[in-house]
């Protein structure tokens, strides 16, 4: 009986879990194996830790890790920080709120590459922004804004692209808070900030965590924004991985790929824990 029940559970789990294990598991397996010298496309396949040790000593690798984490963390924070007030504003329906909500979510429909090229057109040397600032008389000549060294362009693009996603998750979470709870807090003398800090933030922490983690994972692995609008004196981990692959060095590319997966996993866990502690008032 126990065996039959066990088989039934496995059978029920197989379509979902099996697919995940088959698709993700094989990719992870190949990447990890390649990072240790196996599955060589154009050479001898044998176990080696050389690729990891060489990569660990490379300045470009360390800089890429720092840069990717910087982009991942700040993209997640900015997206959520912008989405919160909008979600609270749109909590109660009003005339035009559906239209505003739809417009705010429009970036979800625009592919990142398209957005990056549009952005470059706007900020280019003779682009609209430069022309506008000169027309206003604020700038006397065009300024070079493209590929800025601090990656503000990438952060703007990431926030523009991901804020609607955070808004989608947070709107649902905020709308689930009953009016009675907020009214009670107001009756007890809680101001706007206190109502957010003591009521809304703790009750929406799960949605916020989900938004932070998913945005972080996407942004830490950014490629398309980085190669078009990112700084030319820094490389994201994805960019570094692709550059190794372009040189035919699949093993080094696999090392970077596995590192990226580990950073996404560990980083998102840390981000989720820290975000929960902050939102529940344990870190002030």
């Amino acid at each position, binding site marked *: 009986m126990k065996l039959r029940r066990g088989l039934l559970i496995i059978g029920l789990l197989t379509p979902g879990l099996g697919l995940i294990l088959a698709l993700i598991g094989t990719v992870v397996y190949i990447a990890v194996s390649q990072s240790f010298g196996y599955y060589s496309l154009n050479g001898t396949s044998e176990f080696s830790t050389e690729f990891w040790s060489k990569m660990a000593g490379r300045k*470009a690798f360390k*800089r890429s890790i720092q840069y990717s984490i910087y982009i991942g963390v700040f993209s997640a924070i900015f997206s959520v920080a912008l989405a919160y007030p909008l979600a609270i504003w749109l909590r109660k329906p009003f005339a035009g709120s559906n239209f505003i909500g739809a417009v705010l979510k429009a970036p979800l429909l625009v592919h990142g590459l398209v957005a990056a090229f549009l952005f470059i057109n706007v900020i*280019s*040397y003779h682009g609209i922004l430069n022309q506008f600032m000169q027309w206003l008389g604020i700038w006397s000549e065009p300024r*070079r804004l493209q590929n800025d060294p601090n990656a503000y362009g990438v952060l703007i693009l990431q926030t523009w692209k991901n804020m609607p996603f955070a808004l989608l998750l947070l709107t649902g979470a905020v709308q689930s808070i009953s009016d009675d709870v907020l009214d009670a807090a107001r009756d007890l003398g809680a101001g706007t900030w206190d109502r957010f800090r003591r009521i809304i933030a703790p009750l929406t922490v799960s949605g916020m965590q989900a938004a932070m983690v998913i945005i972080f994972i996407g942004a830490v692995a950014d490629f398309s924004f980085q*190669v078009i609008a990112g700084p*030319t*004196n820094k490389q994201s981990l994805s960019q570094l991985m692709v550059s190794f692959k372009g040189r035919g*060095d699949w093993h080094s590319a696999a090392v970077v790929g596995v590192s990226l997966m580990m950073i996404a996993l560990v980083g998102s866990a840390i981000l989720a824990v820290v975000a929960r502690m902050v939102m529940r008032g344990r870190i002030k």
Partner: protein
Amino acid sequence: MIKSLLATTALLASATMSFAGDLSTMSWDDIVTQAKEEGEVTWYVWYLRDDFRRAVQVFEEEYGISVTIPEGTAAGNSEKMLAERDRETGDIDVLAWGTDGFATVDLAPLFSSLSVLPADDGRVVELAGFDGGEHVVAFWGNQTGIAYDPAHVSADNLPQTPDDFAAFWAENPGKFGFNYENGGSGPSFYQNTLRVVADIDFSNGEVTDERLAAIQPGIDFFNEHAENYVVTASNADSIIRASDGELWMVPAWEDHLAGLQNRGEVREEIKFYIPEMGMNGGGNGVAIPLNAPNPAAAAVFVNWLTSPETQSMFNKDFGTAPMNTAADDSFALVPNEQRAFRQVWGAQPFRGEVEASFIDNVILER
């Protein structure tokens, strides 16, 4: 059931192999006849695909063989060729690849012999230090150099040496840009500058600590002048910013620039030259994988692609250096005397190590 399936598969495989192998014993007329029976050829080429789709219409009309050019990148196409090398019948009839790409693989186990093509002494099989032997023939000649805006830079006073470039940077800060990735024009510029400043022999691919340390004067040269030049995102980014007027001088590919100008995407005023210090030239070749599904059509297509007529057309339409000595090269962007400054791409793995060192010690230090 399984036995009969295996038997059928084995029969089909042996038939395919004998079919492909028969070309060497056939006359060229018989190969053309078989090619027309095959009726199609798939050409994997990673750039200017829309333009090539138009260009091959001449071939399609002449032979009645349809040409399919799939989307794909250089790395993607070559990796596909490598990944499916053990399949009895692959998807690729003709593979285009850079000569430096072909140089990374052993040709005989991967590609058919091109000795079945009709004799043509004008074809180019040795290019930029690469010898394609009987497996690879060049179809596209290209050259890196400097594109400049004559409105700001006098043609009589063009920088020719690293010191000249440094002087230009100092006089015109922020007006010279080059890429270090996403295209080879920028790497050609910085590698030749390193070669001249540090007196390095790039034709030797050996990697030693001493040889890598010897490039330091060149690294210092770029770091000393770091404030005065711009690093761009790609070949295309460099040219577009020169055409836009933001930059006055950028490294570029001759064929890339000519193609963009022909299509009206870059100002016609932008000029091109090869500096006396030398910049890299090379080209792309084509080869027929051993497991090509339409080997006869592939051979006929390669013959057409490398013919004087097609190479003359490419020179006119794309600004390439013709890869057949009998072709007309009068539409090139640079006079023939400047071709003497052509340098060969550095040998691997030394070049790769220099690129990594340049990124670490110049680009990431900015």
